[in-house]
């Protein structure tokens, strides 16, 4: 087990190293960082001095080492657009994105599992057919179109919910801001969270339904029925429990893509998160922000993957055996 953990962590470190390499190459070779900092009329000597002070004359491998070292300390330099430290910009916007992503993930998990269980147990009912149609539409509609649709329905026509921004936020601690504590904050969260979570919800629903149908066919369920256990105990105590392992794995892995897909939802709803910051950086070629975002998303993905893999080993003893090999 220990060997597996170590090997797995080495792999993760390798992936992260590859990501930082891409980020570094972008940072160093896509557009000259010095050119972005100085004006046209800056004297050559001044430019050379800045170049020297940034260490751009050192061997590339040394520069890469320094980049990784700084990345380990979450230092990514100064944004070309905002003239502020990238880390500060990202930290300011992180709470908005994380609150949105976790709310969306929670919504997707709860509603997806409920819908999946229902459509597995009542396979031929009309409601199950409706769920299936909804899931097909959910997979086919692009995120931004769902967002526009929801805004038009609930903000323009009905006027029930706000369509842009985070509402009123409350500051907690030195840098975290939350929208969970005010009613306008909560109301603002509803539409973006549904938009962001809908795709994952349909994914989880399809998965739970397929897994449930599989499990309900097994011998131990038949045996439980023969023993005269109640339908509720069989369905929820035995069947659902055994479907949850793959569901939690997929849901965990999807959390990373939810954070990445937040870029689109944030744009549609003008949500002041990291996604909008990244999009602006792409449009304005603000390489430090792009590099930092890339490394950060890479870190999130790798950590989630690692945790899911390790949890899998803890939950399922059969996998532990193959890991030992």
């Amino acid at each position, binding site marked *: 087990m220990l060997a597996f953990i170590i090997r797995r962590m080495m792999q993760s470190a390798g992936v992260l190293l590859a990501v930082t390499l891409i980020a570094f190459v972008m940072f160093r070779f896509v*557009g000259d960082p010095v050119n972005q900092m100085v004006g046209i009329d800056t004297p050559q000597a001044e430019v050379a001095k800045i170049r020297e002070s940034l260490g751009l004359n050192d061997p590339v491998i040394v520069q890469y080492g320094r980049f990784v070292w700084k990345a380990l300390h979450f230092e990514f330099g100064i944004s070309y657009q905002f003239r502020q430290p990238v880390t500060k910009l990202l930290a300011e916007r992180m709470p908005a994105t994380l609150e949105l992503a976790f709310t969306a993930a929670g919504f997707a998990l709860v509603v997806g599992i409920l819908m999946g269980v229902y459509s597995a147990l009542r396979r031929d009912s009309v409601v199950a057919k409706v769920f299936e149609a909804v899931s097909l539409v959910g*997979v*086919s509609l692009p995120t*931004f179109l769902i967002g526009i649709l929801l805004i038009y329905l609930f903000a*323009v026509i009905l006027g029930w919910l706000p369509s842009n921004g985070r509402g009123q936020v409350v500051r907690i601690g030195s840098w975290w801001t939350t929208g969970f504590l005010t009613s306008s904050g909560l109301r603002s969260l509803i539409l973006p969270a549904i938009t962001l979570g809908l795709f994952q919800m349909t994914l989880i629903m399809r998965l739970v339904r397929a897994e449930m149908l599989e499990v309900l066919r097994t011998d131990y369920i038949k045996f439980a029925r023969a023993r005269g256990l109640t339908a509720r105990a069989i369905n929820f105590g035995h069947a659902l429990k055994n479907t949850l392992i793959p569901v939690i794995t997929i849901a965990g892995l999807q959390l990373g893509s939810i954070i*990445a897909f937040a870029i*689109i939802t944030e744009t549609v709803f003008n949500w002041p998160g990291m996604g909008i910051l*990244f999009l602006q950086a792409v*449009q304005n070629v603000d390489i430090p922000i792009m590099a930092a975002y890339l490394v950060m*998303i890479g870190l999130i993905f790798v950590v989630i993957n690692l945790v899911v893999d390790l949890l899998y080993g803890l939950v399922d003893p059969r996998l532990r055996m193959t890991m030992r090999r």
Partner: protein
Amino acid sequence: MTETSKPAAGKGAVARFLESDIYASFRSSPLAMAAAVIVLAMFVGAVLATLIAPYDPFDPAKVFLSDASLPPRWQDGGDPRFFLGTDDQGRDMFSAILYGLQVSLMVGGLGVALAALIGITLGLVAGYVGGRTDALIMRVADVQLTFPAILIALLIDGVVHSVFKGISRETSAIPVLVVSIGLSFWVQYARTVRSSTFVEKGKDYVSAARLVGLPAPVIMWRHVLPNVLGPVLIILTINLGLAVITEATLSFLGVGLPPTEPSLGTLIAIGNQYLFSGEWWIVAFPGATLAILVLSVNLLGDWLRDALNPKLR
């Protein structure tokens, strides 16, 4: 669509196709037939856009601001000349959608083709050569698979535009989008082709070809490739829907096609600005077109998967 994908075997190909199981399953699935008709109609509409469209929406001499923001014909204040109404600049919506469909399908189709080309080549090489080459290609694929395609496409878009600063977005948008989509979708093809190549490699016909002394590339392309293409066809169909969505999303985010050469995504982005002023048709019709297109392509893909692979049901 399905006809073109069958290997043409002379005169009897059409007749053979009409007798095949796939066609029978196609005839028995009304949903697949409806989807095929819609996709076909949209393809034809897109290809013939310049002929069908009542107006050229991008000819400044024929677009008048006095026609701006007219509602669809059946609504109060609608103009009989413009069936689906006009946008903020007086462009005919129906014509703009046809032109947008053309751009969207072209970018999506080329992107998927590029992805398939890269993926199939790398998958064949990885599966056939094996060893270190295989390990290297698959590691790269693993790393890339942990990131969503849209993020990779955004990054590539940003990097390319900053490297080629001199070129305007008008000329570079389509190639950049195609490359972005190609580079973000190749992994699935590579994995599928690699695993089936592994199986095919051990079969007698490959050994025979090797014995005759054929060079490895010839064996890969002429002999192994046709036998691993089945699953690729399914991925190709499903990916077309995804690629169209990716292009539309990038254009909606403002890093894809510019408003002067709009795709469906650009049209939706333009229309989105008029959502609150009540001009719903500027966003609704391009949006509905995109949704119906992707839904139909996905339905076709689902059906194809079930038809080619009855075990998966």
